[in-house]
């Protein structure tokens, strides 16, 4: 393949004017690098805020089976109140907590049925009359516009065994997208079970870090087999908290716990219902709307008449988690300090405020970026204009040996495009380096998306064509004779 002659001519001409070429490219490079760094800082800040907000669960709502608001949170009649729970393991400290236990949750034997047949089903699985939510409900919720994830949950107590060691803990049967919802999770070893494993009802398990430590000490348990209900489960990963606000400890619900696919749990325990469904929305501002959509939808699915109460509860997480922590204290303080009467602020308002401020930020960044690119473009135009007058003689020489107007035009357009594109590419490199340097040295989060890179590249090429066109046309219009006389 042969390059177009005008392109060859343009590169040769640029090499002739090395100094000018270098200076123009540096100008373009700095322009693009600045823009890219600015976008990186902006999106980084935006993402950081969004992440914090999401980690705080502000985009989360939980649909729980049963309606305790009606019943005033009265535990089932057959529940036993235990003031002290002693862990069956020797040498373990007793947990000093008040826990409501269903008789079926007897720590010692009842749940050790190997086969689900012996169990009588949902009503005996601690779900009682509240067994109303199904996998299909979750699937329907997942299809609601604005919903990001909907994760099924069944929660039980269980003995986890490895060799001779046994540990009494919580087991959560959950959908495979649970880690997407638990933003403050990190995996010490391995990872979460996959959607495929969930579909196939595989006996795989993820250990909370507390459980992993009790059973395996400091060893990596991934790939080992533990037993639940005398059934083997292969360990897929170990999860712990990524937030310093939440320290895993014995007795907590997240890390002194094990996770298995909800489907596996349902089939082993012969269950068909769920305890709850955890829902996240794509945007924090959407939580109220989604909650308002879910309620009538579930009422209809559950055939609840107009004057009957819901058989489920929808709770949002906003102010609860804001007050509770897991939000970085500085961010929490900023939010709390700036929003008077936080408790009265609805999640919707808060979400919308955040959305609005991030939109303002994007618009501001976009504005600054546009202005600096226009300035860069005018710089290119200026230099190209200068070089047209400076190079009148060169143009005349080219015209005298037979260059057509069009060929001179193309030469100058190619020159400015090469200048801006090469300058732009260098600028992208510098911009990427600069933003990572900034995020390293000042600990600001930056984020460069492929989109931002593509945009800067496209814009620098467009600037080259747009601002190069006018000088190029001027160049091509120089009369051959006039340019030869030009000294």
């Amino acid at each position: 393949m042969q390059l177009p002659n005008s392109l060859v001519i343009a590169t040769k001409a640029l090499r002739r004017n090395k100094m000018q070429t270098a200076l123009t490219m540096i100008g373009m490079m700095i322009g693009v690098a600045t823009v890219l760094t600015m976008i990186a800082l902006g999106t980084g800040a935006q993402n950081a805020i969004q992440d914090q907000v999401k980690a705080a669960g502000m985009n989360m709502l939980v649909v729980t089976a049963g309606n305790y608001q009606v019943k005033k949170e009265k535990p089932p009649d057959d529940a036993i109140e235990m003031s002290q729970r002693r862990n069956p393991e020797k040498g373990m400290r007793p947990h000093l907590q008040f826990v409501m236990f269903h008789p079926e949750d007897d720590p010692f034997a009842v749940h050790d049925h190997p086969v689900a047949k012996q169990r009588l089903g949902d009503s005996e699985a601690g779900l009682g009359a509240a067994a109303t939510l199904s996998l299909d409900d979750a699937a329907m919720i997942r299809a609601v516009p604005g919903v990001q994830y909907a994760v099924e949950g069944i929660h039980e107590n269980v003995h986890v065994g490895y060799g001779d060691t046994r540990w009494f803990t919580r087991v959560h049967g959950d959908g495979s997208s649970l880690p997407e919802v638990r933003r403050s999770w990190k995996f010490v070893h391995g990872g979460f079970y996959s959607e495929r494993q969930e579909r196939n009802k595989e006996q795989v398990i993820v250990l909370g870090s507390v459980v992993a430590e009790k059973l395996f000490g400091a060893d990596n348990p991934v790939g080992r087999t533990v037993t639940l209900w005398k059934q083997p489960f292969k360990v897929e990963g170990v999860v712990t908290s990524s937030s310093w606000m939440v320290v895993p400890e014995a007795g907590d619900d997240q890390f002194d716990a094990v996770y298995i696919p909800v489907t596996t749990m349902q089939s082993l325990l012969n269950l068909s219902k769920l305890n709850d469904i955890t829902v996240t929305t794509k945007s924090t501002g959407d939580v109220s709307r989604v909650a308002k959509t879910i309620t009538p939808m579930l009422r209809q699915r559950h055939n609840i008449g107009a004057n009957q109460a819901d058989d489920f509860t929808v709770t949002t997480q906003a102010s609860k988690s804001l007050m509770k922590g897991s939000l970085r204290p500085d961010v929490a303080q900023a939010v709390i300090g700036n929003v008077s009467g936080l408790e009265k602020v609805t999640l919707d308002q808060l979400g919308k405020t955040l959305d609005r401020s991030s939109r303002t930020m994007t618009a501001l960044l976009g504005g600054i970026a546009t202005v600096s690119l226009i300035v860069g473009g005018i710089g290119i135009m200026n230099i190209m204009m200068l070089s047209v007058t400076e190079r009148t003689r060169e143009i005349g020489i080219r015209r005298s040996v037979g260059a057509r107007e069009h060929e001179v035009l193309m030469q100058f357009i190619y020159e400015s495009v090469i200048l801006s594109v090469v300058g732009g590419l260098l600028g992208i490199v510098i911009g990427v380096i600069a933003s990572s340097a900034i995020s390293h040295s000042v600990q600001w989060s930056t984020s460069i998306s492929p989109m931002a890179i593509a945009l800067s590249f496209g814009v620098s090429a467009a600037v080259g064509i747009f601002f190069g066109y006018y000088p190029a046309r001027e160049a091509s219009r120089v009369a051959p004779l006039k340019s030869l006389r030009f000294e």
Partner: protein
Amino acid sequence: MEPVISVRNLTKTYHVGEHQVNALRSISMDVHKGEFVSVIGPSGSGKSTLMHILGCLDQPTSGQYFLDGRDVSRLSDDDISLVRNEQIGFVFQGFNLLTRTSALENVELPLLYGKSNISAAERKKRAMAALDSVGLGARYDHHTNQLSGGQQQRVAIARALLNNPSILLADEPTGNLDSKTSIEVMDIFQALQRDRGITIVLITHEMDVAAYGSRIVSFKDGNILSDVSNESRRHAGGELQEFPAVVN
């Protein structure tokens, strides 16, 4: 035989403010293939004006210009550019080479334009051959500022010859050169005419230089004063041998 150049009633009028300058007043002449025509005349007599029209760098106010039998006085800019590229070779007093560019790349220049799409290797080959023919093959990679005036003018001649033009037009090619270098350039011109049958129109205001041509046309105030064949033609080849120590 049909003339290479044929002009009929060519006029060129410039308007400068209120004034009207008649640079050419009805010129008619023919140049045949293989002729070496010297155009001579005092400053301001219209020599360069004629040469720009002959070289399709400018268009006449009226009259016709046939190049190889085709009327080129009123072609579109693209067509005119092609004529310049393929049929005309220029040599100027000021050399008009691209600065900061090697001799080779200067010579290649005409091949980057025009219809034919020539590969880089072929361009280089043909440019080298042209440089060799003016005795500068060894200096192909020298930049223009590393060459003497005479050498630069030879590069310009090599460039002018690259597309095998119908005519070679030279406007005071020796105006910036010393006498010995001038003779060298004239030697090249005479060799081109003699060995390759190239048609040359040379413009000068010195009789000494005009004397190398086979025919002398003299201008005055935009008119042809006389048009005679040169009986006492000078031969640059012989004169060069009288100079001691010829150095390139």
